[in-house]
């Protein structure tokens, strides 16, 4: 018995060593439920590289994980727009060499050179999420923007995202300001609008707002585009609109961390995700907007319009406290 245990331990130690020597590993940290397991398994089989896959559920969590672990712990991560900007500022990312990515050409050019990384020196776009309004057209009249949500008819009939920047940002846009505005008076106006529609809000939920629509708990929801599309698959009466006054854009990006210990494998992994068939598998399961021009469900013009009318959430530094205080006041 002892011998077998000893042998087992030795085997484990040995495999641990070989893994390290060959460098047949890539350490990936990604959003939870964002890439189907199958895609990861296929990659491991095809390239014979082990993927150590971890997940996070907010950009802040990613930042905390990254800053609290030693350099080289993670190779590929998927921060959103403002977090990319922040991480570049903090020197946490390394410059990308697109010549190492044979599938770089698959990326639709409209998604490149976005405000948070002007020349895509550090990041490449992966998937685009937008906040949209979805409603059950059987029970609700046509809705065009957040202003319509204040209608007295929709008492206790709306679910909003449980995200202070996105939701307060939407109220700001409704009263005519920028989504990233933090002027005290403007925030107060946004709060006034909230007071008007307060009784219509049934819940704030970011985890699965689509279930509210699917189970008829509410007839109206503000949710991420992929969630809205999945809800529509359940109930074809659900209509999806991009609010007239604007909406939030959230682009998740491929980046490689500074001091990554498996840079070559990291490039292989990104290049694999850029492949048409792989990308198709991802958006089949999670129907966000694909940045791959060969697998997109949207026309070039539609994409341009979506990008033009939406706004990225930007870092507001110290002023985040204002949003936080207002959020606490709202609840």
């Amino acid at each position: 018995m002892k011998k077998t245990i000893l042998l087992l331990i030795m085997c484990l130690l040995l495999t641990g060593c070989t893994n390290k020597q060959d460098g047949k590993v890539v350490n990936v940290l990604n959003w939870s439920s964002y890439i189907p397991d199958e895609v990861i398994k296929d990659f491991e089989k095809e390239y014979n590289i082990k993927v150590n896959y971890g997940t996070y559920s907010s950009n802040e969590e990613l930042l905390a994980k990254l800053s609290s672990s030693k350099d080289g712990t993670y190779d590929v991560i998927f921060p959103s727009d403002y977090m990319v900007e922040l991480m570049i500022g903090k020197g946490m990312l390394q410059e990308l060499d697109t010549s190492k990515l044979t599938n770089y050409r698959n990326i639709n050019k409209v998604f490149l050179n976005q405000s948070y990384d002007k020349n895509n020196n550090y990041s490449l776009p992966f998937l685009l999420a937008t906040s949209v309004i979805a409603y059950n057209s059987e029970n609700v009249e046509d809705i065009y923007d957040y202003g319509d949500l204040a209608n007295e008819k929709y008492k206790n009939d709306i679910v909003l995202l449980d995200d202070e920047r996105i939701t307060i940002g939407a109220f700001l846009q409704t009263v005519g300001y920028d989504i990233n505005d933090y002027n005290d008076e403007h925030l107060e106006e946004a709060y006034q609008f909230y007071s008007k529609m307060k009784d219509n809000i049934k819940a704030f939920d970011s985890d699965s707002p689509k279930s509210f629509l699917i189970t008829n708990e509410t007839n109206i929801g503000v949710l991420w585009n992929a969630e809205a599309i999945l809800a529509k698959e359940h109930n074809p009466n659900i209509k999806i609109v991009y609010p007239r006054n604007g909406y939030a854009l959230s682009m998740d990006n491929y980046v490689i961390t500074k001091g990554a210990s498996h840079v070559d494998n990291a490039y292989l992994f990104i290049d694999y995700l850029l492949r048409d068939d792989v990308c198709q598998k991802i958006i089949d399961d999670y129907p966000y907007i694909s940045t791959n021009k060969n697998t997109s469900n949207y026309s070039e013009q539609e994409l341009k319009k979506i990008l033009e009318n939406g706004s990225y959430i930007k870092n507001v530094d110290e002023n985040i406290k204002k949003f936080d205080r207002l959020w606490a006041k709202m609840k």
Partner: protein
Amino acid sequence: MKQKHSIEKYLFTVPVIIYSFLLILLPLLYVLLISFFKSDSYGGMIYTFTLSNYAEIFNITYIRIFLKSIGIALITTVICLFIAYPFAISLMSKKETTRNLLIKLVMVPFLMNSLIRTYGWIVLLRKNGIINSALIGTGIINSPLSLMYNNLGIIIGMVYTLLPFMILPVYSAVSKVDPNLVEASYDLGASKIKTFTKIYLPLTISGAFNGSLMVFIPAIGYFFITDILGGGKIMIIGNLIKNQFLTARNWPFGAAISIFLILMTLILVKIYKQLGGKMDDLGGM
């Protein structure tokens, strides 16, 4: 012989001491420490001493959240008391095997993660959920009741999750009451209510306070219940602390609220001790 005994004592206590030191005391000290730092906007900290995090707590917005949390926790505690006493007293008249079985049933929910059980309530309470469908189906009501995504949902969730923590100490106190006293009370013509207020209550008050502490304190912090059954519309202290660490990236403020909460708890424990409660009962129920 004596020496060997003390070596054994050390062998068994040292791991616990190391455990408490590394995993309880150190993190708490860290929380205390960062509550005096300034936050930078990136979620980091500036290592200069400040009391501003504690001052911020007294902002009217946060005071309101504190009061709301205390209100919800108080209501939860009172409801739990009202359920636990009749349950515990009625257990006393049961056969021992039935009694043991019923007490075990009280503990059965602990076998399953409380988060999953809370999600289970959604299926029961939602607009087209089991309770509403049954009530509409039998013609008792016409339109669905709002059972969740409001204060009611939160209270239901809190009472459900925390009830065992009230029943167990109350039961253990009630079971120590001498049945002869109760009998004497009835013989002298006291009503059930009078027997309760004159015999049970005075003799079991420390058990009741013990249970109340164990219900009240978690009820202030169980943010997942307000998130799930309150629909994220209502914020209690637990949600506020969670937000500081996860979304607002303001760890020092989150730490300050946590320390404030710990102080509140210590005051409650102090009151418990003044009432004659034993610390052993709190930990070893």
